């Protein structure tokens, strides 16, 4: 059962260079109790997508399309209604745990404030018990309940933040680069906690990250974003072992992992979203680009391996004009465009 479903979602930012299409016609479902990884490089629109679900888009952003949560279209929700939703329904884990806790408030007061804001009927004793349960689940001992944020290490603060989100028992959790500021050993601890989440609670998790290693380890399903669009989406195992979109396979090849013996990279740089390339957004950098890729917007199809993909290499055949499959003569990508 899907908790959240986006249909043809679009988000624009108005800038002096014209509208920037950060999210450009995305359709996506998140099911109860599943972990969906949303990966992409900086500027691909993945954080904008996360923010739009939480109603945290900056002023001046325009949102269009459908974003269904529990029968409501979130794109039409007022800020007031969003405030009721954020927390008890949709939780958020931020990137920087260091800056998100109030240094002047005890951990106990953070929990009290959060719970009182959303569940005003709770007694003090219930608040205490709920808080200690949530903290205990994150490995924070009750002896430290009344301490201040500065008395905790970075990893513990991130776990406190997660506990503070989970104490409201949200149905959907959005984690935007939750481990970027942490070291590998601490990162592994946090990923385990997030992994255990779906076993113990029915919480769905949208994990936004640029790190494909993290997605591989903690997500069942993955959506790959490029230039405001989801170019591929499917089971994590399939996407990693048999990527359907050339961007996914090129990105996987360019990651430096412990197995890397040779450097590989994608020529050029991600496009300016105020002035993206025609038709397929990836065609200027794609090693398999064809004539049709510059002429017609790709149509979403299902690859033979099962994932959804936005690429003419997978058809549909009947939509490709005659001669459309001829390889694209490309002018050498100017070094000036290199990232």
């Amino acid at each position, binding site marked *: 059962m899907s908790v959240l479903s986006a249909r043809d979602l679009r988000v624009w930012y108005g800038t002096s260079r014209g509208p920037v299409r950060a999210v450009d016609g995305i359709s996506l479902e998140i099911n109860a109790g599943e972990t969906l990884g949303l990966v992409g490089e900086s500027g691909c629109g993945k954080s904008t997508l996360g923010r739009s679900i939480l109603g945290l888009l900056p002023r001046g952003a325009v949102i269009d399309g459908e974003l269904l949560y529990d029968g409501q279209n979130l794109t039409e929700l007022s800020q007031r209604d969003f405030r009721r939703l954020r927390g008890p329904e949709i939780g958020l884990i931020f990137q920087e745990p260091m800056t998100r806790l109030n240094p002047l408030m005890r951990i106990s007061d953070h929990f009290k404030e959060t719970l009182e804001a959303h569940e005003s009927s709770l007694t003090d004793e219930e608040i205490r018990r709920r808080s200690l349960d949530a903290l205990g689940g994150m490995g924070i001992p009750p002896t430290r309940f009344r301490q201040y944020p500065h008395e905790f290490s970075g990893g513990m603060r991130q776990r406190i933040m997660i506990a503070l989100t989970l104490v409201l028992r949200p149905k959907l959790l959005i984690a935007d680069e939750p481990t970027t500021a942490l070291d590998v050993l601490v990162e592994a601890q946090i990923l385990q906690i997030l992994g255990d989440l779906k076993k113990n609670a029915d919480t769905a998790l949208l994990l936004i990250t640029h790190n494909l290693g993290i997605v591989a380890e903690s997500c069942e399903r993955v959506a790959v974003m490029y230039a405001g669009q989801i170019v591929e989406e499917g089971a994590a195992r399939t996407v990693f072992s048999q990527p359907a979109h050339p961007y996914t396979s090129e990105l996987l090849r360019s990651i430096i992992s412990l197995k890397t013996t040779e450097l590989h990279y994608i020529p050029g*740089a991600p496009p300016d979203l105020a002035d993206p390339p025609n038709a397929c957004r990836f065609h200027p950098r794609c090693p398999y680009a064809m004539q049709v890729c510059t002429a017609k917007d790709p149509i979403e199809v299902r690859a033979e391996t099962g994932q959804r993909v936005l690429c003419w290499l997978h058809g549909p055949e009947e939509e490709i004009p005659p001669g459309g499959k001829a390889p694209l003569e490309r002018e050498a990508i100017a070094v000036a465009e290199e*990232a």
Partner: protein
Amino acid sequence: MQKKPELNGTLLEVKDLKVHFPLRGSFVERLVGREPGSVKAVDGVSFQLQRGEVLGLVGESGSGKTTLGRALLRLAEPTEGAIVYDGRDITRVEEREMRSLRRKMQIVFQDPHASLNPAMDLETAVGHPLSIHGVTKDKVDMRRRVSEMLERVGLAPADRFLTKYPGDLSGGQKQRAVLARAIMLNPDLLVADEPVSMLDMSVRAKILELMIGLKDEFDLTYLYITHDLATARFFCDRIAIMYLGRIVELGQTEEIFANPRHPYTASLLRAIPEPDPAKGIPRDLPRGEVPDAVTPPHGCNFHPRCPRAFEVCGWEARDVRDLLEERWAGMAEQEFTREQALIGDLDALDEVSEIARVPSTEGVRSRHVVELLERIRREQPETRLWKGARSIEEGGKEALIQFHEGLEPRHLVVDSVEVECHLYDDEARGRAEEHARKGRK
């Protein structure tokens, strides 16, 4: 892998280097003459850097790797030890002289956005070292040199970039400009502190490739500081693993990865998330985080988190606090309340001591605390701390856990790899076996 560079001679030698940052301490502390202590960021580090090699300095945040890198250029003041650059001791050289030495020693930082002045166009920024060091004042010559360097680092055509400001560039382009500026004076040594960590995955490979090219072309020697073992493996000839101010393992890259000696290195290698869904995160990774460098752990710095720690690794009172708190986290509330009711303020355990004095609550006999501790030992006998415990006894209002004497790990060489760990020290192992034998009697 890269081919081995020709090594000819030592460019840099670091001997038992320490960099401590004194804490200011409160007014009262100063009044009563109590030492406020210091942050031991680098605490006794020795290594050599051969000409033309790439040495990786790998560690988590708080390991002191950045401070060490800065200290080599005297951007942080060494407290003790020596830095010998090109045969010359530069540990106490005057800042004036140091400035001219830095023509040959350059550093690149992690954040390219912060390394470039936003109000300076690239021509001025990249040409800055030339004017600072008085290499050339001639505008035409300067522009020619800057243009050549920009093209060399991939910012071509240079005409398009000379007038650009940092704000017009992508992260990768900025890092290219920073590299151009660092290479401008044709240095010998380049300290690169996380040069690709803030860049996107697909850009990292490009910058690393550029750095490899620059190294060959300009005969550079690199100290590559990073927390990322994957890039270090690809890029470095040798690797030094740092933990809390010390180099715990140092050796040829292939050897470190094929056969990590130090338990910390082994844990790091297992924790890296690999882009392969078939491989999960291991469950038995070290818990906790890098401890405070003001009062580092007794004995071996890594012992509180080490999966293989044993009798002589330096068990102490603070480890008992961690044990109790870890136990209580996630325990059913009733049980926790019962146990906590016996034990007094855990702050009593915050001292560096081989005797842990676990206080009993007012009115509770210390016998009950001893019983609790013994029960914990029976329930979790595999907890490494119990290897270090010689005895648990009553002592007035406290339960006393006496630990075996902790030893400082010695600098050892095991099959060409330098390592600081008791597991490879026959003397320490012998001592531990003796303790264990006595304990069984």
